[in-house]
């Protein structure tokens, strides 16, 4: 099992697109840290880039890779092996390879320039975003036979979580500004994996003081052990549930 996963990882990390992805992340991180004298400000800018770019790259690359390896997966599935295992190995291979790319591209520079708790948190948040969006990619890819439709679905998912969701959230906040919405917003935030990661990182920064009352509520929520655990559980669920759905669909579909 380990050997099989290592073959898959070895194949993907040699992929030109993954190498380019690593280089771009490295460029962002090194550029920001060397241009911005304030490491916390650099970290904040890096977070904003990472939480938009990493999900996009992860979901699009995984989707395309899934469709491109369809023929090989068919050959593997003609061997005595359960379908769920094949899909999980493929998932583990892509998620590990992209997480490795992220750790080299962002993890190393962050540990070099800003090896603080919030720095580590940014790296963890990026790795989780990678895993979650690979899982979402698998759910989309097993649901559509057609490659173009699958890639379309991946882009729509990314667009929704990266942009549309926050716009809707702002709309709610604006229209119901007379009501005490802090708790509601906290719960709504859990419905977007990117927002969970952002919230976890941002409340550890001094900037959180500028976020007014909701910033205080978020901080209070995440300061307690339970809130922290709840946020992590939500993030893990965002990886686990789409993956479980993908395995379920994949086990029953015609190939």
């Amino acid at each position, binding site marked *: 099992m380990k*050997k*099989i996963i290592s*073959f*898959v990882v*070895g*194949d*993907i990390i*040699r*992929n030109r697109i993954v190498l380019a992805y690593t280089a771009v992340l490295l460029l962002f991180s090194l550029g920001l840290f060397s241009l911005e004298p304030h490491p916390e400000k650099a970290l904040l800018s890096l977070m904003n880039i990472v939480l938009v770019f990493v999900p996009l790259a992860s979901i699009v690359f995984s989707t395309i890779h899934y469709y*491109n*390896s369809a*023929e*090989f997966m*068919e*050959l*593997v*599935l*003609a*061997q*005595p*092996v*359960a*379908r769920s295992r094949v899909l999980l190995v493929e998932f583990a291979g892509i998620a590990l390879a992209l997480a490795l790319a992220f750790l080299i591209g962002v993890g190393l520079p962050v540990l070099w320039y800003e090896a603080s708790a919030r720095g580590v948190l940014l790296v963890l948040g990026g790795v989780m975003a990678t895993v979650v969006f690979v899982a979402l990619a698998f759910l989309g890819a097993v649901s559509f036979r057609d490659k173009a439709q699958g890639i379309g679905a991946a882009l729509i998912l990314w667009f929704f979580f990266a942009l549309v969701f926050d716009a809707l959230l702002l709309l709610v906040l604006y229209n119901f500004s007379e009501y005490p919405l802090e708790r509601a917003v906290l719960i709504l935030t859990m419905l977007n994996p990117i927002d969970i990661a952002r919230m976890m990182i941002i409340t550890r920064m001094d900037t959180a003081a500028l976020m007014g009352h909701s910033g205080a509520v978020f901080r209070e929520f995440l300061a307690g052990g339970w809130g922290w655990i709840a946020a992590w559980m939500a993030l893990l669920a965002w990886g686990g549930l789409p993956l479980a759905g993908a395995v379920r669909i994949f086990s*029953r579909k*015609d*190939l």
Partner: protein
Amino acid sequence: MIRIENLSKSFGRNTALSDITLQLSPGQCVALIGPNGSGKTTLLKCILGLVRPSAGKVWVNGITAAGNWAYREHIGYMPQVGRYPDQMKVEQVLELIRQIRGREAARHTDAELIGAFGLEEVMAQRMYTLSGGTRQKVSATLAFLFGPPILILDEPTAGLDPVANEVLKDKIRRQCERGKLIIITSHILSDLDDVATDVLFLQEGRMQFFKTLASLKAETREDRLSRAIARIMQKEKP
């Protein structure tokens, strides 16, 4: 060895297979032929458990294909299009399949085709550097590598050069004589003529006939499979 009963499969409104019943035994080399879209690949995929039948059942060595996977240790499969992970080496692909098939399979390794195709030279090369024909040789090698009693070959000779073609046909013939069950689809009827013992003809998802090659030739009074098939198809036209 393989028993199929009332097998039907439809994709949405399209019927790919309808009501197929047949039994295949060791020592048979079955040529599965029919026009494009007649359901050949779907039938093979039903045996492999890659496609779930809409109705009917498939048994392989007494085990139902639906919901099981362990029975596939008895089957070697060569797909129509062999696409492999670009950056994997040939030896890694072979090792990967060996790992999946487990220790038991590794004990019956039959590496004859590696030598016969001259694949030793490309073992350390990555898959994307190989030509289509060489990739096809890798696919053929994989199908025979673990000595399975059933071989399913989907268009095996389509991209092979004449030398490799003869090597593969020779291998198929000898395996068949040793009592293995072999199922081949191909549009190159002359290749099938050299190896097949039986002919299964599909058209629009229905089984038109399933006879031995000898009786087919006797009935049509032709000595080539291609002529015999042409004669039958002419006869059916009103």
